[in-house]
């Protein structure tokens, strides 16, 4: 059963018989344009080198109230995580397995109970966790965003249900802009994209009451990004 398919499509085709005039200028192509994203140069400037882009990511994180930390080594990331666990009184940390996540999980203090959700999870158990640790696809310098997908980041809920989301990423995952993040996904997955892709920019927020910013509306109240070499 797919409803009124034929009738609806016929109406659309009929409606489009007369072409519409253009109200906009034919978009000007910038000097150096990419095929997939001919518009990218009109967006906010990103800076050329990796160092500049890390700096931009850090600046955007500050605006977004993301805690962003460049760790000199994986050990430093573990230390920071242990500190967060202690400061925030975490009892349970949910996570999925992966190269970066495993390395960190192995050396966390034993007092922290770990819930690995690779084989699925019980919703209430995940909700009861104090934090969720995930990997990501990429970090977007231009907007300070983390790109997660169902495949790289432990499914859909791990990065949104627990009240604190911690991302562990390597420096090589930093991309300049959204267009680059999409190019990366296309190259990696071809036609079989994960069923869920999300760009996360800061902790969950709302301005619905008097347009005053409140963090932690329904998703995480805190977002921490640990960048390892």
């Amino acid at each position, binding site marked *: 059963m797919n*409803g009124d398919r034929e009738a609806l499509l016929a109406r659309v085709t009929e409606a489009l018989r007369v072409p519409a005039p253009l109200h906009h200028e034919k978009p000007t192509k910038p000097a150096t344009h990419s095929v997939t994203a*001919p518009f990218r140069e009109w967006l906010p400037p990103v800076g050329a080198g990796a160092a500049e882009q890390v700096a931009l990511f850090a600046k955007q994180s500050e605006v977004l109230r993301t805690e962003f930390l460049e760790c000199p080594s994986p050990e430093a990331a573990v230390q920071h995580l242990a500190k967060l666990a202690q400061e925030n009184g975490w009892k349970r940390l949910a996570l*999925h397995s992966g190269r970066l996540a495993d390395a960190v999980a192995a050396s966390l203090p034993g007092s922290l109970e770990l819930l690995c959700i690779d084989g699925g999870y019980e919703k209430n158990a995940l909700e009861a966790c104090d934090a969720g640790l995930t990997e990501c696809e990429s970090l977007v310098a231009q907007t*300070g965003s983390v790109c997660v997908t169902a495949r790289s980041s432990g499914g859909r*809920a791990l990065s949104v249900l627990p009240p604190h989301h911690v991302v562990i990423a390597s420096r090589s995952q930093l991309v300049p802009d959204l*267009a680059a993040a999409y190019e990366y996904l296309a190259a990696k997955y071809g036609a079989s994209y994960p069923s869920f*892709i*999300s760009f996360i920019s800061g902790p969950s927020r709302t301005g619905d009451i008097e347009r005053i910013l409140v963090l932690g*509306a329904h998703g995480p109240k805190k977002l921490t990004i640990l960048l390892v070499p």
Partner: protein
Amino acid sequence: MISTPEPSQQFHTDADRTTADDPRRAAVRKALGNYKVARGKTENAFTSWPHARDAAAAIKYEGVNHLDRYLREFEEKFTARGGKVFWASNSAQAREYILGLARERGVKSIVKSKAMTSEEIHLNAALEKEGYAVVESDLGEFIQQLMHEPPYHFVFPCMHLKREEISALFERELGSAKTDSPEELTMIARRFMRRHYIDADMGISGGNFIVAETGMISITENEGNARLTTALPKIHVALIGIEKMVPKLADLALLLPMLATAGTGQHLTCYNSMYGGPRQPGELDGPEEFHVVLLDNHRTRLLADPEQRDALHCIRCGACLNVCPIFKNIGGHAYGTTYQGPIGSVITPHFRGLQDWKHLSGASSLCGACTEACPVKIDIHHHLLHNRRNAVQEQKVWWERLIWFGYVELMKRPWAFKIAMRLAPLGQKMHALVLGTPLDPVGAWTKTREFPQAAPQSFHDYWQERKEARK
């Protein structure tokens, strides 16, 4: 909503009442003042906002003007990944499909994330009538649901309410303690909602974009409620208007930042998520079923008008409302429409009947602020003029025709015009006698304005006199 006999009558009564509500207007103005500052800053961060607008307009133009092709492409890609597409010509079909699904799958509780399309088809009322518990999870929508009021603004649903009012509402409906902290209030809603995400067996969402190339829909939100709604329940239904089409996934690399900039002044909204099918093999969570309901509901009527087709490019950022002097004064509810503000005034006559809704074309100062604010360059204020013209062409008003006839006859004859000019000051004296009484023929105008004084001498006479004197 209460059905009213005459939308235009209702509009005037409501607008009169809301414009007299000074504190409410001040609150709305303040909220929108903050928006203006934030937006200006973000817009200026673009290397070139004007070029970006052209590029965004071109993307939407392509999507809308080849809609049939892209709808087919979307369907093919989406169903190949296990999604189900339902084509709804009107609101009844869409409602029936979703209700049928709920019945068949034995659904008990439903959680919803923001979807203006569901307001458009009155989905909640239909679901509740059949006994389903439906909870709006977006904070603003949740507040409006408890208020039993439609959204005030399609991006900021409860921007007209003050924190005291929301606190009192929560006290009454949820039994929470009184508070004047927006943060506390948000946390009350957060706690309340958590259970619903976990218990619900159906999640209903809207959608900001349909991506043909990859068979995905994209949802933009700040709170994370849509992400939870689409992650935990075992069935996900997305109700989305057919015009939300974009050809390629990478097009979002432009449209997402522009939607955020124009909508709230953010560089990027907190969560921009693309959904391409239900849970895939090898994925550890996500719904078992994902249904996309493609809604026409008179959109093809607007599509068939090449002159105004670009009104379907709208990405519902709400910028045109935020800058509109009329919206700022009459507020969102007075429009009596699902989509408020300038864009609502343009599209509602197409969706719900030109003659019944033509009065909204007059709810504009034609200042063009909306057109200037629009990220996809919709010619909004000219479309209001087009609607005025079309309404008159379709159904002529006898007294307007009489006046124009008289005017034309007068202007054709210079001698008659001269006499009329001479008589004007006298006419004005006579007018003074009936001013403010029901006999005043232009009472609607003079009720709130002063009638301009006729000059004692016409410019023509003045010029002649001056020439004489110089000789």
